[in-house]
């Protein structure tokens, strides 16, 4: 948790420092997108199927033409059903069940995004964020489940490119990928790390 507060603190400081610029430019931006997340690391042992129900929305403050800070909310749904199998617990107890694993992630991240070039049809960017991941794990043995919801630390790194839709505004299509580091360390699951593919749009609010 100490690391979580360190990263979140750094992100908060960046946003506080950005406030004067925000007032100066008064060009708050909102973004939204669809994303597909692919489990990786030990999360694959729990669910290996990609999550096709992924959405994100965010608010960003442009500090200048290239640097933005903001807050984002995400939602990702993962599900996988395994064929019936007998599970042995080693003490004389055996359970035959169809196991279904269901995971929902709700990351809330403070982040920064930096566009590498100011002009051009395609403008590459890199970004990072940190915050919390509200995760619900629900494992079904047959129809009997045992859900757990926990709040954990999360870190996101991303890269991609913007395609501006106007030469006079910051409206743009966003296409990119991300790595989502989401330690869990509960309920027998070490982490909920994923690779993400995202497509969305960003536009200013006046």
């Amino acid at each position, binding site marked *: 948790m100490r690391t979580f507060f360190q990263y979140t603190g750094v992100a908060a400081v960046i946003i506080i420092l950005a406030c004067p610029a925000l007032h100066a430019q008064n060009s708050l931006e909102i973004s939204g997108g669809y994303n597909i997340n692919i489990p990786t690391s030990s999360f694959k042992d729990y669910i290996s199927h990609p999550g096709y*129900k992924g959405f994100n929305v965010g608010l960003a403050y442009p500090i200048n033409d290239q640097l933005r800070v903001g807050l984002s*909310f995400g*939602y990702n749904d993962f599900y996988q059903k395994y064929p019936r199998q007998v599970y042995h617990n080693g003490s004389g107890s055996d359970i035959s069940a169809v196991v279904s694993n269901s995971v929902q992630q709700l990351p809330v991240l403070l982040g920064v995004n930096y566009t590498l070039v100011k002009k051009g049809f395609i403008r590459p960017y890199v970004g990072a964020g940190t915050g919390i991941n509200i995760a619900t794990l629900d494992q079904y043995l*047959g129809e009997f489940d045992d859900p757990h919801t926990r709040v954990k630390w999360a870190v996101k790194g991303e890269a991609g490119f913007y395609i501006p839709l106007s030469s006079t505004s910051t409206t743009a299509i966003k296409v990119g990928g991300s790595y989502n580091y989401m330690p869990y360390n509960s309920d027998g699951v070490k982490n909920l790390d994923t690779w993400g593919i995202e497509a969305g749009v960003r536009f200013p609010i006046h």
Partner: protein
Amino acid sequence: MKKIGWLTGGALLMIITLGSCRKDPLNNLTNDESRIYISNYDTTANFSSYTTFSIADSVDVIENNQLTGRERSSFDSTVLTTIGSILQQRGYQKVSRESSPDLAIAVSRVYNTSTGVFSYGDYWDYYGGYWDPYYWGYGGFGYYPPYYAVGVYSITNGGMEIDALDLKNASAHGNKITAIWTGLARGEQTFQTANAAAEVQALFDQSAYFKH
């Protein structure tokens, strides 16, 4: 800043609403897939040391922790017959309860509308001795579970329970009739006659050690 608050709240509300798009695993399960089969056995028991068994002629019906009666429905009859067939296939000899069987087989239908952690210990605390030991010719003896086992499953419907009781060693165990094996089937349509044989078969299939 007020605008930012509204936008942030709206974004969060939108995400929570999208969260209702969660794929419900229960909608993707057949009735067969909804059922689970749990078996427990006494790891110190030597199953090949028993040669005979007897099966009760009806099943206990337990509702909300109360023994409400004994019945023999078509489901019960199929369960009892299937158990007898499987145990005979596995080398045990079926005898009457008056013939001093080594094992007694008891079947229960347990209905419980509460939810919580399922515990074999509780099961036996509540219902232990549901068959009077006199029934098996062991008057004055007590029932004991093989060990304290806990299942982390919600009990939202009924279950079919099979117990194999050690009569052969009851005296040697200090007048204790110990269960050396228990089987439990739970899930959708557990008590359908058409599913009875498959449920019993599943419990014994995962208990290959249960043979003479």
